[in-house]
């Protein structure tokens, strides 16, 4: 279980407890947190669950697997701290993680 903070582009914060084994994307979708669309449902085939992760946490997360950066190329305003939230698996280690949502996904 990890407490995850989702911050919308307008600054609105949502803090929810997400079960281990779910992804950060699923944590948002299941709790009706706006700002993450996840059109493809988590198969790393779209780029609509894009989030920014600040440096401290970015470096602590498991590294991106092959293909994630390719997908991020197609996201809305990606930067070097971008991740696809469907590729971040929740575990106890992620307790306190904060992710920032972009202005929009599509």
């Amino acid at each position, binding site marked *: 279980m990890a407490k995850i903070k989702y911050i919308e582009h307008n600054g609105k914060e949502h803090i929810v407890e997400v079960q281990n084994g779910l992804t950060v994307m699923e944590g948002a979708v299941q709790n009706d947190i706006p700002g993450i669309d996840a059109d493809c449902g988590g*198969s790393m085939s779209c780029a609509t669950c894009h989030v920014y992760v600040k440096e401290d946490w970015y470096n602590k997360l498991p590294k991106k697997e092959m293909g994630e950066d390719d997908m991020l190329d197609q996201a809305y305003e990606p930067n070097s701290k971008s991740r696809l939230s469907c590729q971040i698996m929740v575990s106890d280690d992620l307790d306190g993680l904060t992710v920032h949502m972009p202005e929009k996904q599509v």
Partner: protein
Amino acid sequence: MIKTDVVIIGAGPTGLFCAHQLGIIGLKCEIVDNLDKIGGQCIELYPDKPIYDIPAVPKCTGEELTNNLIEQIKPFKFNFHLNDRVQELTNENDNWIVKTTSGKKFLTPNVVIAGGVGSFEPRKFPTKSAEKFDGTSVLYSIKDKTIFKDKSVVIFGGGDSALDWAIELSNTSKVSLIHRRDEFRGVPASVKKIKELSKKNIIKLFTKYSIKDVKGNGSLEEVEIKSEDGESKILKADYVLGFFGLIMQLGPIAEWGLNLDKKVIPVNTENFETNKKGIFAIGDICTYPGKLKLILSGFHEGALAARGCFKYARPNEKYRFEFTTASNTIKDRLGVK
């Protein structure tokens, strides 16, 4: 005006199998899709990725699945209208008039929306200023490459479209290629070629940059690019091209007076009809208690929606359930003995 029993919006697996079921029960249909090819998400997003949960098919790729579905509906000779999008639905007595962006018109008692998450559209630049030049000097696809001759063309993107066009246009235009990171996702041979052309100064390559602004009085003059640490550069540009892949947009479906729950359409589970008589929704775009976004669910939904269509297409006939193994009528329709 094309008269038909059913118009299917979306040529993904769900739409294709629904067409099959319509053919089996003796109805005609026309299939419209915004993409230039058949297969929907299967072909656009994951043609090479194996799928493991199609009943009785242990493993197949998106492309194989699509090809098999196309093969399966071949006997019915249905028409596909690709590169076209349904724009407008208007009710006339017991029929729907369906208008597409290319100007085609259909008259039909039934419309089956099998549109997935919406239609695929190119992802555009986030910069507001780019909208003003959209379609004239800011482009997301190329129809006529001769317009770029001897011009300054600034290309954004790191995939095959961006690389291929950068290489191709560098023969006749001054090309700059901008990508947000050092790695490219295009095929290795193209990446190698780009690096060679950059070394020879034929292509100007800027990695770790993204678009900041486009400027011009009347016509486009320059584009400003920025790096993540805030440094910016101005490049002369007659044309700016963006190749960021396709995104899915609900598009005009939102304007047809259907009940929408976020981006999906609630349906009943008896025949997958929406709140509008004669409009059905199946596959990823529909929702109901227990909905699973699986291809197999789309197949089931399509089979039931097809029977729902029968009622309106043949109001004076009674639908008779038959098996493909036993029915001679169905075998005739399939052209088998």
